[in-house]
């Protein structure tokens, strides 16, 4: 089998040595001055600096959400918001400094790029340091670069789409914070009719202690085009809270298709609070596939706005909550037009006292005749001390619709474990097999490399959870 990219922390030694690496970084905390420093360091045009400052004003005004997990321990003034490590964006791994290259070699990124990816962006701390797109796709007009580069090179596209229509800064405290301090992320544009048949991947690595990562990913899939974009995220383990507050905005034009896959394995002290949304036009298809591991607290509800007639959304998510973790995840779909369809499959595993909550919104607007949606929430709990909640919110303002909602809580029963052990599997192997079966519907939609990876990650995560 091919070697796959990995979001498993393999070498603490190397990562720790890299913590203090920086070329420029802001002081801890947040102020107008710090935001101006970030903008200046990036040599940004005035409109972006203004946007940042306006977002910061919003951030100060908006309170933290009062629903969902407890965020009261999140200390915004203790964070470092920007840390740049590299003077340039490299286009060849040969140019990447050995220590960073090593980290990415260990997780298999360069090899995966050679073998099955159409393009790769690597981000280290706040900034993308590596980007490369196969010339085949570049020749067809595909743009794949980090979002800072896009601000410089494609200002018209960025101005038009960046936090204007899809996710707005003033929506909530974290989106406002993101608007003020965002850095890095991927910018992907696929021109009309171009079908990119290899995945594009971005790999985010947050290494510094007590820092924040705020990448902004902006994907525009033009009419009739299609693309599969993959993100992998990790951070090593420290005992100071770090914050990841990303925004992903996707525009799926008429007849286009976008699959967004992410496997996130944050260390257990990270607050992972993201806003991801897609606007899908006529006959467009948006697919969200997510595996959420690690982190202390995750709040993530990818949203599809089905704007055009016949638009479709598919949401597949796996969330794993172990000891001390709170996963508050789900999906939102807004059906705005006739004959729009959506499917939501959410799988959660809680163990060792972990809490997982499915929080969903399914909204069907008046006039969305013939809309159809099916929601399936499955929770698996191998013990009696963990928690699984389901908070589905369904709002329907149209009568000609078809809606299904299923929620199941599964146990790994003693009988099941005995049965599998009687075939020669150890207790851990038996539990792993049940878990593997549970997540199978999501796993089978992943490329082989990631399927293997996610299975392995979940097994590692749950290892030692028995006894």
């Amino acid at each position, binding site marked *: 089998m091919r070697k796959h990219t990995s979001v498993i922390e393999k070498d603490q030694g190397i990562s720790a040595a890299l913590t203090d690496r920086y070329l420029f970084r802001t002081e801890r905390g947040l102020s107008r001055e710090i935001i101006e420093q970030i903008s200046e360091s990036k040599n940004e045009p005035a409109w972006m600096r203004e946007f940042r400052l306006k977002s910061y004003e919003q951030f100060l005004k908006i309170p933290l959400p009062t629903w969902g997990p407890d965020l009261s321990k999140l200390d915004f003034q203790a964070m470092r918001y920007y840390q740049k490590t590299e003077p340039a964006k490299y286009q060849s791994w040969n140019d990447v400094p050995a220590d960073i290259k090593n980290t990415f070699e260990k997780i298999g990124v360069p090899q995966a790029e050679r073998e099955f990816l159409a393009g790769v962006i690597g981000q280290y701390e706040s900034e993308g340091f590596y980007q490369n797109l196969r010339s085949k796709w570049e020749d067809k007009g595909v743009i794949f670069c980090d979002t800072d580069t896009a601000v410089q090179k494609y200002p018209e596209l960025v101005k038009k789409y960046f936090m204007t229509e899809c996710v707005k800064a003033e929506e909530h405290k974290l989106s406002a914070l993101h608007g003020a301090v965002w850095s890095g992320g991927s910018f992907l544009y696929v021109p009309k009719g171009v079908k990119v048949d290899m995945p594009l991947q971005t790999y985010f690595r947050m290494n510094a202690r007590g820092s924040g990562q705020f990448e902004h990913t902006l994907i525009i899939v033009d009419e009739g085009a299609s693309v599969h974009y993959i993100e992998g995220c990790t951070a090593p383990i420290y005992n100071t809270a770090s914050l990841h507050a990303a925004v992903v905005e996707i525009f799926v034009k008429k007849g286009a298709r976008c699959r967004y896959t992410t496997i996130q394995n944050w260390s257990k002290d990270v607050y992972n609070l993201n806003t991801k949304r897609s606007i899908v036009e006529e006959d467009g298809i948006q697919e969200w596939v997510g595996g959420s591991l690690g982190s202390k607290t995750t709040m993530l509800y990818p949203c599809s706005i089905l704007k055009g007639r016949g638009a479709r959304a598919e949401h597949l998510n796996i969330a794993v909550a172990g000891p001390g973790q709170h996963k508050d995840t789900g999906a939102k779909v807004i059906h705005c037009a006739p004959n729009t369809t959506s499917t939501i499959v959410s799988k959660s595993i809680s163990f060792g006292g972990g809490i997982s909550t499915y929080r969903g919104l399914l909204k069907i607007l008046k006039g969305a005749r013939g809309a159809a949606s099916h929601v399936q929430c499955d929770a698996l709990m191998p013990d009696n*001390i963990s928690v699984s909640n389901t908070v589905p919110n369904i709002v329907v303002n149209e009568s000609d619709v078809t809606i299904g909602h299923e929620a199941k809580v599964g146990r*790994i029963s*003693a009988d099941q474990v005995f049965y599998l052990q009687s075939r*020669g599997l*150890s*207790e851990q*192997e038996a539990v792993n*097999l049940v878990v593997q*079966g549970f997540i199978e*519907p999501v796993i089978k939609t992943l490329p082989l490399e990631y399927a293997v990876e996610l299975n392995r990650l979940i097994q590692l995560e749950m290892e030692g959870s028995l006894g």
Partner: protein
Amino acid sequence: MSTLTIKNLHVRLENPSTTGLRAGYPSTTQAATGHGGAGNPILNGINLVVRRGQTCVLMGPNGSGKSTLGNTLLANPQYKISRGSITFGKHMLSKMKTDEIARAGVLLAFQNPQTVSGVSVTNLLTAAVRNFKGKGKDFKMADFREEIKDTANTLKISKDFLSCSLNEGFSGGEKKKMEILQLSLLPAQLIVIDEIDSGLDIDALKLVAKQISRLRARGVTLLIITHYNRILRWIKPDRVHIMHKGKIIKSGTSTLATAIEKKGYGDYIK
């Protein structure tokens, strides 16, 4: 070489809340038999020897403790051995965990096999086979997959059943065939077959009985638990034992089974 020896075995039902304590798994079903509350003895001094290659039948009315014995042989944590021992050759089964017992070659065909969503019989077998000794260097997974298909063919199990969720929505007969399929493919030395004949139609029963005969011909030791003797039309046992109230009350040859078929258990369980 390997003889199963059960000596003065006493078993009681473990308090359900303490079963699977290590992981705290909840139990979804009550222990195999509904009688005898927690703590009550359900096997009261079983003595039984099954010699290598022998086929023994364990008969008895409902609730006599037959299935308990089968489950205890495989160390089902819902049952607690309070006295006595079980050995299989050099292995002290009564001190081993379920998976260790299985890897020693002792396997159980379940009366009520479990459903495992998202896991096919092929997934299970390929995961399990790695754990058995003697599947070392020469072992090729591709060959094993072929073997699964061939055996399924013999048992007239359709291909779809090899890749869909194990036992999910299967009929009683399909589940039983799946059990025999699994036990035929793992390196078994002793197979305990618990009520394989219930829920099978006559054609399926014939197929299953034929497969059991093949295992017997391979030299596998068999302990067949049943309360009818339907299956005994095709399999002639070496020994027949009758259980009642957690004890073996009568042992004999296959003529004992015939006698029971004619007269019922009445004469023995007074």
